């Protein structure tokens, strides 16, 4: 079975704060067939984010798909709130990179 990396098939892969205590990830597509294929592959699950970011299940707060925008969204709890001592990403805008290499089953 072949696979495709998200970086090669998604049009947007990003992370950002959703408030100071949560980090949210968006993966979007510009082609409805590709979106449906990714959706039916079942790759976007809480387990994916637990594994990629090595966080406990309860810290993955939600995983959604959103058909009108051909997109997936997942939200995890931050371990350090935005901008306090020890934080490394006030905006949370650089936490998406591990998603780029997620492999989606392709046929």
């Amino acid at each position: 079975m072949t696979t495709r990396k998200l970086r090669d098939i998604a049009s947007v892969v990003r992370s950002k704060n959703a408030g100071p205590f949560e980090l949210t990830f968006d993966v979007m597509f510009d082609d409805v067939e590709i979106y449906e294929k990714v959706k039916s592959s079942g790759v976007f699950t809480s387990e994916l984010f637990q594994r990629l970011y090595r966080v406990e299940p309860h810290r993955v707060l939600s995983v959604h798909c959103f058909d009108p925008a051909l997109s997936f969204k997942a939200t995890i709890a931050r371990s350090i709130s935005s901008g306090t001592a020890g934080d490394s990403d006030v905006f949370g805008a650089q936490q998406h990179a591990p998603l780029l290499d997620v492999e989606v089953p392709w046929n």
Partner: protein
Amino acid sequence: MDEVRVLSPTAILGYGYPAESLEEGMSRKPDVIAVDGGSTDGGPYYLGIEPGGGGGGQASAFLEFLARDMGPLLEAAVRADVPLVVGSAGFAGADLHLMGALSVLYRHAAEKKLNFKLATIHAEVDKEYVKKKIRAGQVEPLGPVPELTEAEVDKTTRIVAQMGVEPFVRALEGGAQVVIAGRANDPSMFSALPLMRGFDQGLAMHMAKILECGAIAASPGSGSDAMLGTLRNDHFLLEPMAKERRCTTLSVAAHSLYEKSDPTKLFGPGGWVDLSDVRFEQSDERTVKVSGSRYEKAPKYELKIEGSKKIGYRTIAVCGIRDPAAIAHVDELIASAREAVARQYPDLDPETHRLFFHVYGRNGVMGALEPSTHVPHEICLLLEVVAPNEGIATTVCGFARSLILHHGFDGRISTAGNIAAPFSPLDIPAGPVFEFNVYHLVAEEDPHALFPIDFADV
């Protein structure tokens, strides 16, 4: 056709916008110019800062940006005789920030000899009010946040509440041409006039949510450029004002997900917009048509409150490392610095005196979330020390940094020093450190209770 046009010049008042975009926007005869003045996005510092408490230079720099943006908007609004509505003024939207924004406004009005009726809406919340609400069981955490206690309320520098659309409507109905408001739910200032004119609340709030970010929802996106929203009975249109940008169904749809956890719901005081059945269509090459957004009323009216407490002062040191053996021993360098600090300063409470080592090149950006184990040819070791006062923070930082500079590890042959320091001074005091400790919902039946309005003739 019955419609209302809302011009958003920029994502944050202070982020700037091209003069041509404002000119293009004004040529469309907007019914209102609305602009978001702030965010919690920059972290807890901006809400927490105290005049004279150190680090105030950042606040005055922001007022300079704000002044540059405010002048032309004020002139354009007064000249076209349309309202200018600013929310979350001065970035964090407490009285301190509101006063900063007002000083800029009065200065421009005097310089340009502009006259208008001004409404100022306050959003700073009395701590006693919050404590009373805690005792009444009417405060709940918003997301993964601890329960709020009265002791935590006492630790905050100040607390603000995000106002809904109601105080803006009252200010405009009171005849204000210019509204400068403290902390506000972002869509409130953009949806006030459309709601007064009887347009659909779901569409008005959804359009407002996209407009509050200026041209970020365009392609290429920009937080420093203008977007026009045109609201009609059963849809709205979005068009960026700069010719080189366009709205696409993807760019607008993408924005509906931005900075929020549930893609189908836009929460605000008193309700949410349900986006389950929303449709994005390309109306022309640069314009997107949106329909299907529905407003749902919440069972109770709740307001988001935000507060920030000071937890100490920070000093940092930037240490570049290029020697491969030193890179291989970076964990040992860090451990030896920690041990030496504990030995040298045995009386320092580890709860209030904290040392952080950010290893850029390895996991400086992602910390514990980083899956990669790649070893690069150079790294940056950023020392961060947070302590109750700046003197101790700088002393401990300097001690730890000099230890890392000279620590002898096994097999070391480059014995002059382990780090490249880019600056003198080597240790850089970075001002007070804050932490968000209030991020909660408070039940409040009266949407106006926390947001008094002052009217004045300027």
